[in-house]
């Protein structure tokens, strides 16, 4: 379990030589491109109705068709990428940073601090993740920000556990002992020595949880507990599509494909990062 060694050169370059990693990279790149350039990729806005063409199948003017309000589905899928990627990025960043801090402090301090932090994490872990996210958004009210918070809380114990385990490895090493002997304080050792050395497994886990965060967000917004209408999210689009399955099956097809391909992209990329960065998988 020692990821302490500095990455030998070329590990990251190996990422590109794997076909799966390449597919993952392309899928993620498409999603990021769609999210950034959505307004320039389509002549419509995601909330603009076209009453002349409601529930139309794919046509030249609307390649993915339109929904029950005549809104362009392609436009909504493109704008939906913004919500998914925003939620993935912010929630994973929050839980990664929070988990890294909690876990490294627990591992470094030991004793009752360790006990208190990790028992709290155990309690968060005792809830099935979707249920906890549901509970949090139910109490705080459904919104984009609360969905982000809920997903971040759900993932917190995962990062905290990894950070703690890695911290225990790092602080047993000679150079940490040496720093202590030289009189460096706990804060200095934690921020300058421990955190940089435990970053790799956390980032790898983060890339895998990114995919999970996108799925959880789609669940929440599918249930109506994520970003609120008229914001276009893939989950709400699928939810709305259920009412029109026999009239306009394409409504369910495109947002589902968008979630599937984006999540697959992050899964592939995460697997490749793990293979490339984790020395155990060699």
């Amino acid at each position, binding site marked *: 379990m020692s990821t302490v060694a500095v990455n030998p050169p070329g590990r990251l370059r190996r990422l590109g030589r794997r076909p799966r990693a390449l597919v993952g990279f392309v899928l993620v790149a498409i999603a990021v491109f769609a999210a950034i350039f959505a307004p320039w990729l389509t002549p419509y806005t995601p909330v603009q109705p076209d009453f002349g063409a409601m529930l139309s199948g794919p046509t030249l003017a609307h390649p993915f068709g339109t929904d029950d309000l005549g809104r362009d589905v392609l436009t909504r899928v493109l704008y939906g990428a913004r919500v998914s990627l925003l939620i993935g990025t912010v929630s994973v960043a929050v839980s990664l940073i929070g988990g890294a801090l909690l876990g490294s402090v627990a591992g470094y301090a030991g004793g009752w601090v360790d006990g208190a932090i990790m028992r709290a994490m155990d309690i968060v872990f005792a*809830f099935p993740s979707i*249920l906890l996210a549901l509970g949090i958004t*139910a109490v705080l009210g459904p919104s984009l920000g609360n969905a982000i918070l809920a997903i971040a809380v759900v993932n917190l114990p995962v990062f905290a556990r990894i950070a703690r385990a890695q911290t225990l490895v790092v602080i047993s090493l000679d150079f940490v002992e040496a720093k202590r002997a030289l009189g460096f304080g706990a804060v200095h050792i934690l921020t300058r020595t421990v955190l940089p050395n435990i970053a790799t497994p956390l980032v790898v886990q983060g890339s895998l949880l990114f995919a999970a965060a996108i799925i959880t967000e*789609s669940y929440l917004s*599918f249930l109506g507990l994520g970003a609120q209408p008229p914001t276009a999210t893939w989950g709400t689009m699928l939810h709305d599509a*259920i009412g029109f399955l026999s009239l306009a099956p394409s409504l*369910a097809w495109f947002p589902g494909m968008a979630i599937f391909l984006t999540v697959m992209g992050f899964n592939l990329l995460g697997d490749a990062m793990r293979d490339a960065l984790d020395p155990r998988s060699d």
Partner: protein
Amino acid sequence: MKRYLLYRIASLVPILFGVSVVVFLLVRLIPGDPVVALLGMEGSQSAIDALRAHFALNAPLPMQYLVWLRHLLTGDFGQSIQSGQAVLPMLLGALVPTLWLSLAATAVSLIIAIPAGVVAATRRDGPADFGASLLALFGLSMPSFWIGVLLILGFTIYLPLLPASGYVAPSTDFSGFLAHIILPAITLGTALAASVMRMTRSAMLDVLGADFVRTARAKGLPRRQVIWRHAFGNAQIPIITLLGIQFGQLLGGVVITETVFSWPGIGKLTVDAIFARDYPVVQGAVLLTAALFVLVNLLTDMVYALVDPRLRRS
């Protein structure tokens, strides 16, 4: 063994305590008066006063928690705001369909995952292995409600073979029960199958490389017998453990699947209660689900310890 079991059961106490505190605070954290949250907007003054006394709402928070806990331990989960029914019987009634669905979904996942994982491991790096890993990747990347929607599209709308929603109790009409459970079970089962398959493959690869498998092969035993009796027999432990760990994922997936298929279980009850702001029901459902999850994890550890004596010592 006894000491290990006692230790594991004792370690459950702080977790369940923490879970109950979180669920308790869930309703107290809702902005506004908890009485309104628990009684709805239309409570009469006498009902409000009665509830205040019942939950000791004028006492400090830790005291309120203890009172609430005492109610729980005597089976008093409160009343539903919507229907006025006692919450506990509602929960127990919804538990039955959920357990059926969980069982059926687990069966579906095993039927897909075990053969696929074993074949992938025995033909490592061949086309079958590649195909299986591709399937697992698809399974992990598809949101389960989308699988559900596609199944409804395929088997209810294009080919009107199976009902898209509802539940029939197996005791009233068994074939109706089967017809209704097939689509939700496949929806939930495929989501589980991906990780079970990955675990089966890696557990089988570990075992296939072991000395006793080589010995069995060297003895000239038939290939089928070596793979299924000797290798798979020993690969089961990690698979059972994974199923236990995945029970949480199953309970989460139940929420989504039940909503898509209008399956009247715990998951749908929770979601409906959240939208109706029926907080006593939300509270009870979340508590019951979390307690189930914790208990299943304990059972998994116990099965594990029963099968693998090395674990009892730690």
